[in-house]
């Protein structure tokens, strides 16, 4: 999705570059925002289901949510907000051309993402051991679908950030060109933002 890549493709296929770098950056930015809009609607379906069923079954939501581990949920919230901070620091580093600093911050971000998934794994196994599964009732259907879909996004984010880290190591990014860093950072903030909604909706009912 980046301008740089597009130019490479152009060279490979005998196309002239079909966008100047400034247009390519604007296009990538508009592209990622549009993509995030589709993501909002993807989660939107589940959030709609949440609203409908919470109104319908307030008791179930209250009683079930007590079975979730608030402490682990809160720790995970802090972990993920921390990862948003490191990715933002990484972007501000590459804006000043500091590639090594970018790589450090990206590594931290990926590490925090892995921590998040690790804690999530602990929570899931704990739930399963108590016989709580997506089929238990509506609340747990929502819990597993929402956190599961979010978890897949965290995993996808790790892959994307990993690719950016790898390319940063090959010296692809600089003060003047770092669009992929910016747009993958935006995606990561989105993943973080979803969790900021999920945590109170699922762990802090009532």
């Amino acid at each position: 999705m980046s301008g740089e890549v597009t130019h490479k493709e152009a060279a490979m296929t005998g196309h002239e570059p079909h966008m100047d770098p400034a247009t390519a950056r604007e296009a990538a930015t508009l592209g990622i925002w549009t993509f995030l809009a589709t993501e909002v609607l993807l989660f939107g379906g589940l959030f709609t289901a949440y609203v409908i069923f919470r109104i319908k079954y307030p008791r179930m939501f209250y009683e079930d949510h007590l079975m979730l581990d608030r402490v682990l949920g809160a720790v995970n919230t802090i972990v993920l907000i921390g990862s948003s901070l490191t990715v933002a620091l990484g972007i501000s580093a590459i804006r000043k051309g500091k590639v090594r600093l970018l790589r450090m911050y990206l590594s931290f971000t990926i590490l925090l993402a892995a921590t998040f998934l690790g804690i999530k794994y602990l929570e899931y196994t704990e739930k399963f051991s108590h016989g709580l599964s997506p089929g238990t009732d509506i609340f747990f259907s929502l819990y597993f679908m929402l956190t599961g879909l979010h978890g897949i996004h965290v995993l996808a984010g790790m892959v994307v950030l990993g690719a950016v880290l790898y390319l940063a190591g090959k010296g692809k990014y600089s003060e003047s060109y770092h669009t992929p860093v910016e747009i993958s950072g935006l995606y990561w903030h989105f993943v973080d933002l979803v969790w900021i909604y999920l945590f109170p909706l699922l762990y802090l009912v009532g």
Partner: protein
Amino acid sequence: MRETMWSGERPLNGNASPRGYLEEKGFWAWAYTLDHKRIGVMYLYTTLFFFLVGGVFALLIRIKLMFPGQHIFTNQTYNVMFTMHGALMIFLFIIPAIPSGLGNFFIPLQIGARDVAFPRLNLMSYWVFVAGIVVILFSLVRPMDTGWTFYTPYSARTSADVTVLSFGIFLIGMSSILTGLNFLVTIHKLRAPGMTWHRMPLFIWSMYATSIIQVLATPVVGITFLLLAMERVLGVGFFDPAKGGDPILFQHFFWFYSHPVVYVMILPAMGIISEVIPVFSRKPIFGYKAIAYSSVAIALFGFFVWGHHMFVTGMSGTAAIIFSLLTYSVAIPTAIKVFNWLATMYRGSITFESPMLYALTFIFLFVVGGLTGMYLGALGADIHVHDTYFIVAHFHYTMVGGTVMGLLAGLHFWFPKMTGRMLGEKMARPAWLLMFIGFNVTFFTQFILGFEGMPRRYAEYPAQYQALNIVSTVGSWVLATGVLIMFANFVRGLFRGAPAPPNPWKALSLDWQTGSPPPTENFREIPTVTDWPYGYAGRQT
């Protein structure tokens, strides 16, 4: 008056070979191509193939329906047939054909760009589409029998492979989102210098509106099918009353996508009509801004009318009245387009080449389809004809009479540009006539059947409906003959057609100012646009 929309006198096609973008040959040159034109062509071949497959299912359904009882094949086979007809036609043909096929080919050409904004994403979108097709084929092991709407609770319980098919459609949806995203960005960022929003061809406006819907509605059906699959695999209970869920919720989710998506089907066709009518009337399009904004209006209104699919499945009276009113409001921008097309033709120097024949057919049939849609938006009338053949007739008038006729207008219009060869009018006209007659015989009878109360989707029906069913089936044979002749003409045109000049129809938009077929880079020099593309000044002799 000088008929041109760009500055300078030079032709824009450069010194490409006469075969233009088609020059490089071989499987890999196509499979790995980043050229929007080649990707568009691959989409066209794929979608037209499924048009024929879906058509075969339709013919088989019609043959069975010649007889009231259980004949020819079992009722279960019938259920599979009409499900496959619906699902293939909708997801693999009518949604992607114009946007991903003709849109891919002509958006960059019409806005004066060398390619779409993200060529690699474009190629990926095609291969995701193919992956979706492969997954859908796997689901044929235990073929679907739910109808294309997948309504729960049946779809959650049937032994058919709903899970696999849901995943396939999820992939098709993903491809659709990527294409829409690509087009939105392309139209925003890659217009040639001087091409302001109000100088864009109306096909671009309609593709812009289409892309908005693809991007905003498709994720919702994605999550819906995901939840349906999870209901079957993990026992998630959102749509299952036994677990406190609600099957009506599935319908809301489903139609929140599937109503807007009918505008994904029709808007691009309307865009094609807006291109064809002025060219063959040699007159400036009437009401440019009204047509342009009505596309966007349809896209936006379209998000708030889904409830009209559910008037009889459980909805409060107030909600039904609101949805009914909103449904009526969609008719306004649609009517604006039709009136403006008619005003464009008024006192024009009209000629009736095949693209124009299909465009006029579109207007005629789509008006029938649109107005019968008003019957269905009206609460009282809808309850009478809901789930009867009236609905089947209505949406075939909009989808075949509208979208397919628009697509065929586009294919006949742009065939010389895409292939570098002319299509023979001698075969094109009888093909059109047979299709026109066959279509009306097939589907007009179904309006009557619906009013008389014949329910849709049932494999068997009371003997009193047989006469009209036989008429309808015979009509389907006439229609199929027309389609076959048309395809034969396409094949003949591909191999034997006379070489096409760059601009056989003397059209003004940029796509016609480059070679036929266009060179890989589209234009030797990106033109500077100085005017809109509709400055036709009558017929020049």
